[in-house]
């Protein structure tokens, strides 16, 4: 291929890509008119353009006015659907959500109330027992019970923490007989 032909074709193709307007392209460079091979090259573009343009003309056009009306009517229907949508969606979405929330609250409540029931039942039955089985002690009785308990505690403390000798001394001040008993017990190493 001659350099001139090569340059013509390269330019032509480049320009075709940017602007496939054949008339403009062919008017820019008329090398093809004097070169048989390049004329053939141009003809392949001419044929393509002719066929495509003819094909475009043959495309059946719709009724655009009707199409625009259809667009508006579809938009109107869509708007109506959207107006109804929240009414439908709200119950559909919120009802299960509400059920779930209520279920969680109830579950938590019963779980907690189960624990309370255990504690409460213990306290309850203890109270019932005390109410049912005993007369309330008088203040004096309570004082006596306290004194007795205190004395026992003191006695137990002394018994646990002191030697027989100390006990002996302690009891010897209270009751001589007991002192003797304890002294004999200490002798026997009981």
């Amino acid at each position, binding site marked *: 291929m001659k350099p001139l032909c090569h340059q013509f074709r390269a330019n032509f193709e480049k320009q075709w890509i940017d602007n496939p307007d054949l008339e403009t392209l062919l008017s820019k460079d008329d090398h093809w008119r004097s070169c048989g091979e390049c004329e053939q090259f141009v003809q392949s573009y001419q044929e393509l353009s002719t066929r495509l343009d003819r*094909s475009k003309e043959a495309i059946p056009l719709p009724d655009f006015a009707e199409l625009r009306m259809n667009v508006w009517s579809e938009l109107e229907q869509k708007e109506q659907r959207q107006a109804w949508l929240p009414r439908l969606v709200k119950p559909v979405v919120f009802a299960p959500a509400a059920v779930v929330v209520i279920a969680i609250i109830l579950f938590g409540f019963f779980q907690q109330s189960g624990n309370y029931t255990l504690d409460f039942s213990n306290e309850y039955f203890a109270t019932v027992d005390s109410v049912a089985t005993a007369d309330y002690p008088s203040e004096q009785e309570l004082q006596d019970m306290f004194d007795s308990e205190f004395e026992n505690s003191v006695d137990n403390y002394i018994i646990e923490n002191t030697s027989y000798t100390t006990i002996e001394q302690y009891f010897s001040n209270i009751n001589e007989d007991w002192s003797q008993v304890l002294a004999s017990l200490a002798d026997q190493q009981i």
Partner: protein
Amino acid sequence: MDSQALRKFYEGDAQVFNTLMREYQQPIYYYLYGMVGNAEDAQDLLQETFVKAYTKRKSFRGDAQIQTWLYSIAGNLAKNHLRWRSIRRFVNVEESEHLFPEDDANSTEIDEMEQELFRYVRQLPERQRSVFILKYFHGLQHQEIAHILDISEGSSKTNFHYATKTLQELIEEEKR
């Protein structure tokens, strides 16, 4: 579309939208027709394109031309339609023959010249076809095509070049 018209479009002004539809109905219809090769489907897709453009008008950011935005909506709808169609064909050949009568060689609805366009253009791969239609029939810049099809400008040019070569070869083959 000037800024005032654009603001009205955002607000859903019916008059502005009607003007917009009038301006772009034919070129977008041609694009869709070239893509799907069927007048009925192209019409449905055009209607769907405008419905979508109106409902999604607030998503138009204004950084591209409105025609670019409309073409990209139409292109996506056409792409989905073709995908759906190829699946249907794959699943059920008989059904597809019934659904797409334009494939029938004896169809009386489509004349010979129409068939000619589809004998050539429809044989192109989807992307080449899109680029070729947008460039050749709509005279869009490669930059716009790239934006519509979400490809690079270079890719748009390459696709157009290969589409041209393929179409020329197909015509040559037919002559032999």
